[in-house]
């Protein structure tokens, strides 16, 4: 499980890659935890870019729920973007689409949560 990050104004886009399962969930939780701590009212908003994730298990979804709970308590915002079809189905079957806003693309996620981040994204992203 790899997590890379890019900042667009007040939004951090965390790009995830690989499988999130029993073998990688600890590194996923650790990697995500540092960013969630800063996801608060007036702080960073988070977009999790799932385009590189081909599977997420229940323990990975549990980690996302804990992140959602923490950020909510802090007044922060976390949304999901670019779920692959299989991962999208896992989110739907587990009812996590009722927990998180899920957007087809990172750009659409930014458009929803931060106009300034969208402007920064469009300025840096060709085409």
């Amino acid at each position: 499980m790899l997590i890379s990050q890019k900042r667009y104004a007040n939004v951090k886009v965390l790009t995830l890659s690989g499988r999130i399962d029993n073998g990688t969930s600890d590194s996923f939780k650790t990697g995500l935890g540092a960013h969630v701590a800063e996801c608060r009212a007036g702080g960073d908003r988070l977009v999790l870019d799932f385009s590189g994730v081909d599977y997420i298990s229940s323990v990975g979804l549990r980690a996302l729920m804990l992140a959602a709970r923490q950020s909510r308590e802090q007044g922060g915002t976390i949304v999901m973007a670019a779920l692959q079809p299989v991962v999208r189905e896992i989110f739907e079957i587990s009812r996590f689409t009722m927990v998180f806003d899920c957007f087809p693309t990172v750009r659409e996620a930014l458009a929803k949560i931060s106009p300034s981040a969208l402007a920064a994204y469009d300025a840096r992203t060709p085409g």
Partner: protein
Amino acid sequence: MPAVRVKFWGTRGSLPIAFDAAALKDRLASALVAASGHDVGTIEKARAWLERGPGSALSQTFGGDSPCVQLEAGAAEYVLCDLGTGARVFANRVLQRHGATSPQVFHVFMSHLHWDHIMGFPFFTPAYLPGNRIVIYGCHRELEHAFRSQHAAPFFPIPFERLGARIEFVTLAPGRPYDIAGWSVTPRRQDHSGDSYGYRFERDRRSIVYSTDSEYKLDNAADTQAATAFFRDADLVIFDAMYSLADSVSVKEDWGHSSNVVGVELCQLARAKHLVLFHHEPANNDDKIASIWRETVRLEEITRHGAPLRVSAAYDGLEIEL
């Protein structure tokens, strides 16, 4: 080898429910629309259409009795898991089959003592008949106390002492196998308020895991490995899939129940062959349970990494032969 059959007499969790008037009206309306243009002009034709024709799906219901499952392997003695309200239906069948004067032996394995799992016992007719022997196994120290209390005033009018059958209580220790009624039975402690116990039954190279009222979090390696070992290569896993995963890790966390998603994962890890969704949420109607079942079948398909896992949703009256 005798055939092993598993019969589900009660599959609903927490609280028995009825198929109510509103649900009946909806079902009848759907049936009338579906039957339009078909020859269903007599009761016989209508029955045939419902049983074998396009209307067969409309004639099914998951039922509303609380947990009671029978394991049958050709032996004379009966083996049950839990005594929810499904036990009353089972008892009626036993009486129909043997009559009231033919003594029978019943071995009952209790997952735990919450009400929905014991509330069928006051209506378990064999308990009232002299000559019958009922052996109730469990791992809770309060096993006998719970059954006696349920019969005591003000809860029930007939005291336990007036039951005619010979009733025995046997406390089992989790983690060790017992030879009972032709089965090797191993209890395992589970995560549930006040604890619950799953049972792994084995005989003639076939294995059945009964794991209800258990919250599997799979959030640490040791617990996951232990649960996987308990489920290992099981021919049938009867699994508490009461909640969605999202509910079970949020608003219903620590309520002691699991989800369809975790059921699929555990069975895949354990290479189990057949997962049966069990302990249905009483708020879910037939359409909802059927939808959850279809989604679970799909989840198994898209996450499969070995042999296929068959997925079923238990209903009152379901029989599975291994």
